């Protein structure tokens, strides 16, 4: 007789096969009429058909069913053959949330609310004049820098926002120089980086030289082809597109190819032009695009731009763009959609990309903090947009307050606590929760409630559709699966 045992020996006795497993915590949501998406505690997913799911939860799944082995390996169920699931799940959950302990890494300075553009969809409610009233003061900026460097996070990014941030270039210089000097004096200097959000229309060579010297990245706006962009983003002379494109070229030459990124915003006029918008990014040598809907703040609400299209219509537009981008990749053209990449990182890895809107606990205050032009401190970019609409719910305090009192602000902590998706009604049962976020600012703005009414929530509708769409696409097509896995890992 052989001294080697067959595999059945290691399976255990067949008579005991049934009801020998326990279910680990997992959630499921219908993907279509047949299949369910099930996610484990760490956000790993698998697709299960309805009758299989029924067998699984009623402890009738047999261990010789191939699905059984998959589900055990992915930590949906456990049996006597392995007790490693809790340890491995714990490591994965801990990895997902490890950035939380570092506290806020992104510090936004609203250098001025002034802007020479007059975009009707402006979500920050820009001002066109009165330098004194809408520029941040040097005193406030110095205090904000002091707060930034108190963050326990070993790596800190200061982002300059506006209005048009370069309209207050003198203050930008001051913040960069004082932050660098103060950082150098810390016992453990932080990895300190800078980025400037700008429409690039008024950027001069002197400004770019400063950016090059201090490695300040550029984040600009490009809504699409010239006609669309200029319609969306009017300015005196109607030459926003020309100036932006010229600025992108110049900035790349001075700062390096990877130092310029761009964002698009969708208006009603964008909707029929999904491919043209992607092509515009391709033509200007971008390697990806962030397809972004309008958010319900500022002029976007006032001018009714936000209500000009439904969530469904935007998703149709998003799908068209995403499918086109996938086809580009199939042709060998490397190009990605950044929102999908952000979500895929959550779906396919244990890392979190730290995108403020898709965090739970919410990203406000933890993922970003805003020092406004008037010295007020807000929990997020959207929080200060809401404040311009006279709702200061998410104001943490002012730059005169201590770091400790700002970040133990009662409303802020309450918002985090109440909106934690794992314990929110409906989110708690949702298979997509591990990938999703809570966005209390959005829901407060829309429903006057930190949690919001999920059946009415556009945030929920939009993200659920995208989660399903990403799964559908990669389950149907091995090429897409490979592409998405690469996106997930380089986000």
């Amino acid at each position, binding site marked *: 007789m052989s001294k*080697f045992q067959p595999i059945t020996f290691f399976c255990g006795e067949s008579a005991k096969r049934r009801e020998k497993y326990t279910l680990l915590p997992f959630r499921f949501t219908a993907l279509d009429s047949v299949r369910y998406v099930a996610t484990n505690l*760490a956000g790993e997913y698998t697709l299960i058909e309805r009758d299989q799911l029924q067998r699984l939860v009623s402890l009738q799944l047999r261990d010789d069913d191939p699905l059984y082995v998959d589900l055990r*390996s992915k930590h949906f169920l456990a049996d006597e053959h392995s007790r*490693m699931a809790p340890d491995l799940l714990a*490591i*994965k959950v801990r990895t997902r949330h490890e950035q939380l302990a570092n506290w806020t890494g992104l510090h936004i300075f609203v250098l001025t609310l002034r802007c020479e553009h007059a975009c009707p969809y402006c979500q920050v409610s820009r001002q066109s004049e009165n330098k004194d009233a809408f520029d941040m003061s040097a005193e406030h900026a110095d205090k904000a820098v002091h707060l930034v460097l108190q963050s326990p996070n070993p790596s800190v990014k200061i982002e300059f926002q506006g209005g048009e941030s370069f309209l207050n270039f003198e203050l930008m210089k001051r913040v960069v120089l004082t932050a660098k000097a103060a950082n150098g004096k810390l016992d453990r200097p932080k990895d300190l980086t800078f980025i400037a959000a700008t429409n690039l229309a008024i950027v001069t060579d002197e400004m770019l030289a400063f950016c090059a010297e201090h490695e300040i990245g550029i984040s600009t706006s490009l809504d699409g082809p010239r006609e669309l962009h200029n319609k969306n983003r009017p300015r005196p002379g109607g030459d926003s597109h020309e100036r932006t494109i010229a600025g992108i070229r110049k900035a790349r030459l001075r700062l390096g190819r990877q130092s310029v990124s761009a964002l698009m915003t969708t208006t009603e006029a964008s909707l029929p032009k999904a491919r043209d918008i992607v092509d515009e990014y391709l033509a200007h040598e971008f390697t990806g695009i962030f397809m972004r809907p309008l958010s319900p703040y500022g002029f976007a609400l006032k001018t009714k731009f936000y209500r000009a299209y439904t969530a469904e219509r935007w998703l149709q537009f998003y799908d068209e763009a995403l499918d086109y981008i996938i086809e580009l990749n199939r042709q060998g053209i490397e190009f990605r959609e950044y929102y999908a990449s952000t979500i895929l990182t959550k779906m396919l890895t*244990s890392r979190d990309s730290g995108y403020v809107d898709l965090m739970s606990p919410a990203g406000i205050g933890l993922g970003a903090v805003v020092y406004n032009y008037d010295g007020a401190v807000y929990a997020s970019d959207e929080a200060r947009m809401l404040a311009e609409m006279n709702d200061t719910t998410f104001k943490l305090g002012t730059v005169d307050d201590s770091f400790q009192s700002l970040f133990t602000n009662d409303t802020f902590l309450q918002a985090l606590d109440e909106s934690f998706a794992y314990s929110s009604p409906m989110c708690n049962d949702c298979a997509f929760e591990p990938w999703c976020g809570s966005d209390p600012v959005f829901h407060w703005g829309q429903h006057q409630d930190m949690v919001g009414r999920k059946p009415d929530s556009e945030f929920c509708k939009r993200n659920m559709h995208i989660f399903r769409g990403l799964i559908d696409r990669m389950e149907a097509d091995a090429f897409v699966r*490979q592409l998405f896995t690469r996106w997930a890992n380089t986000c």
Partner: protein
Amino acid sequence: MLKLRGKVEALDVTSPQPRLVHLTQNADLPGALRDRTALLFKGADIQRMLGQFAASKSATKPFAAVLLCGSDEELACARELIREVRDVYLLPSDYSYLDDGDIVRLNPAGQSLSAVFRKNAPNNSVLLTERCNHLCLMCSQPPKDTDDSWLLDDAFELIRMIPQGTQNIGFTGGEPTTYGDKFVELVEAAKLSLPGTALDVLTNGRSFKNEAYAAKLGRVGHPDLQLGIPLYSDDPVRHDYIVQSRGAFDETLQGILNLKRHGVRVEVRVVIHQQSLPRLVQTCEFITRNLLFVDHVALMGLEITGFTRANLDILWADPHVYRDTLSRAVEVLRAYGMHCSIYNHQLCLVNRDVEPVYRKSISDWKNEYLPQCDGCARKSDCGGFFSTQVMYRHSPNIRPF
């Protein structure tokens, strides 16, 4: 295939004790170094130099041994010339690869010799024991349950003899951690004797389920240590079956986690065969989701030796047939940014997309090619075959480029 150990004829030995000796072909080596050194004459040198050496020998300090390696005729002549010399070993020409700076173990009582360190070999593995708590279906070194702790004593001595500047050595088994704390001491001794030498250890990792043991190894702080640990499936039943030991999967995983907790580098090794193939891609996915922090993943072809020969029917898989599966597995690992390598495969049997991680990995002493490989344009890029693959089983789909 080089013959690394076997029977030799030992003549007129001073002591029956086995010992490790350096080799030299310099008959004028200073007397101070001769205690630990054997003089080696090979082939024509036997005839040319031995007579002179035997004549002058009485005046100088003797070598630890004199090794004569050559054909039957050459050795027959030598017998006449060395009547006066003690501790002579007659080696068949199989051992003609032996060279200056090599280290051999002489066993006079057993009339045997093994080459334990070859100076010019890219890798030298030190066998620490043949005992093991696994009984892997494809074990190339079938375990024996006998006390072979003399191998460990030898290893301590060997690492003091291996020259500084050696790039890399390996500890292998059997299961090296069978020795418990003594194994950790050996790693520490390696660090002290050979601080610039990378150390690769092959272990099933199960001993490190005890976190204190992993911590102890971590505290050694060896500057370039890596443990190669096999994980044959994401399915615990399948892994336990392949290693023929219940509970192995969990203990190996715990071991990997504990080692990484304590800063020890870990390479996960997956041997590809009929029993691991059905879940190879899933296994790689499992590694990316659960063990992303390991330092390297090796996907390895089958060596046709040891138990593999007995179990060939349930193990053999033609790489030509599983090439697409291998590509998918590598794609998963690379997409997640994991360092990975394909070992022990022939270049014409893998898809082009995996070539960036394809390695020439087979140890020089058991590395061969087929006759039809002579015409291959890419032979120098190809890792070739295990000698045992040439002898017993290889893919019928070898196609020279």
